[in-house]
């Protein structure tokens, strides 16, 4: 009988708290979104499962010595996982479209306004009772507007580790929701005639240009913004491995096996931050709300900048491609292509949108560097 009581007192049923059940529900919701809705499944699946594991009573996954504890401690607290992912993303990124039309970098810059506008929004939210975001918290929340998962996680782990779970979930959910959030904003700020604009074919880009590009980006970062060199440096390393053509094995590993392994542990470790005591707070709601605002503003400023460039260039630039300036590669570019096709069935904007899209990755990395330099 005593054995039975001991067994019962160790069982999950006897130890569940309401919060844990709710967070397991959140984990299950993320699994649902990943599996049924196919929203960013590569990340939401491990994150959702991590959330379930982290809320098991007496499971000990997140206690010192547990698997999730170590995954978080080794990979995220140190910033190593997001940086390895960034190297993989660099190895997967083709800057050809951007090098052929470098003006697109301006769109990637304009779309970062969402980040800095949200910084003010997060601080202003302190007027509402129940919210108390420090400047560091505000900076970490604002980076959601960069629509770049690894950058958001890297910055949050540096500035506001307590909010990391909510920020990562918000960043990845909104990236998954790009096809829903962006089109209405894009239509709001453009006219039908503008959406129909066809763009000139991009020129060829030589191998030398592609090799020099990552080195030049790195050089500029070293000169102007050393705080961004962890992100930009790893990104450029990945890209150089790809473009140099002499280390195909390393490049392949970075963009396949390595990034996949890291993604599993990154997802689990982020999920482990979805524990009831950290996540079930009013602040989480605020973060989700601010994230959506950040995203919407970034999209809008990108489109407006593209509109300006369209006017200045005499109607050669389709303003839709500005929306791709918020990173979210390649989803945002695909959305631009889709909205463009709705107005003109023969207008394929995908390659043109890839320019601002990869420029957005650089832009948000630079913005993250600024936030680290000023607030860190």
């Amino acid at each position: 009988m005593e054995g039975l009581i001991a067994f019962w007192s160790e069982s999950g049923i006897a130890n569940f708290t309401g919060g844990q059940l709710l967070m397991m529900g959140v984990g299950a919701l993320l699994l649902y979104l990943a599996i049924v809705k196919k929203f960013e499944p590569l990340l939401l699946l491990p994150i959702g499962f991590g959330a379930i594991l982290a809320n098991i009573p007496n499971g000990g996954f997140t206690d010192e010595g547990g698997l999730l504890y170590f995954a978080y401690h080794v990979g995220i607290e140190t910033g190593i996982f997001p940086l390895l992912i960034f190297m993989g993303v660099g190895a997967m990124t083709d800057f050809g479209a951007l090098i052929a039309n470098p003006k697109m970098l301006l769109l990637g810059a304009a779309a970062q306004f969402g980040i800095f506008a949200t910084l003010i929004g997060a601080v202003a939210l302190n007027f509402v009772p129940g919210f108390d975001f420090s400047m560091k918290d505000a900076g970490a929340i604002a980076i959601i507007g960069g629509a770049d998962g690894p950058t958001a996680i890297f910055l949050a782990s540096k500035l506001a580790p307590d909010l990391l779970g909510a920020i990562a979930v918000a960043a990845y959910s909104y990236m998954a929701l790009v096809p829903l959030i962006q089109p209405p904003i894009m239509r709001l700020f453009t006219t039908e005639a503008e959406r129909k604009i066809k763009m000139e074919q991009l020129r060829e880009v030589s191998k030398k240009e592609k090799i020099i590009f990552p080195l030049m980006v790195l050089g500029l970062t070293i000169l102007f913004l050393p705080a961004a060199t962890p992100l930009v440096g790893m990104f450029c390393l990945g890209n150089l491995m790809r473009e140099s053509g002499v280390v195909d094995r390393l490049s392949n590993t970075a963009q396949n096996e390595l990034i996949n392994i890291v993604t599993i542990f990154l997802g689990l470790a982020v999920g482990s931050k979805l524990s009831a005591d950290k996540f079930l707070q009013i602040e989480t709601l605020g973060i989700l709300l601010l994230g959506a605002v950040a995203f919407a503003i970034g999209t809008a400023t990108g489109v407006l900048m593209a509109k300006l460039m369209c006017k200045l260039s005499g109607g050669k630039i389709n303003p839709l491609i500005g929306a791709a300036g918020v990173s979210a590669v390649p989803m945002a570019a695909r959305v631009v292509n889709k909205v463009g096709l709705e107005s003109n069935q023969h207008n394929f904007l995908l390659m043109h949108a890839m320019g601002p899209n990869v420029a957005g990755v650089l832009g948000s990395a630079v913005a993250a560097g600024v936030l680290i330099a000023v607030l860190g």
Partner: protein
Amino acid sequence: MESISEQIVESFGIMLLGMSLVFVFLTVLILGVKLVAWKFAPLPVAPTKPVNSGVSVQSQGIDPKMVAVITAAIEQYRAKA
């Protein structure tokens, strides 16, 4: 603890600084890319013109030189006949 309005002023400052830095950084990068393009961009490939307007050289698999040689040979042959 600084007041909220002070924080807002501070974040305004960060916004201005941040946006101008992002723009300056990427503008310098544009100049850099253009400079590299000016030096290393591939020359636009001149479209290969048919050597002789009277001969069709539609099939792309044939080397233009070869076409020229064959055309010359045919012309010589026709001149003889």
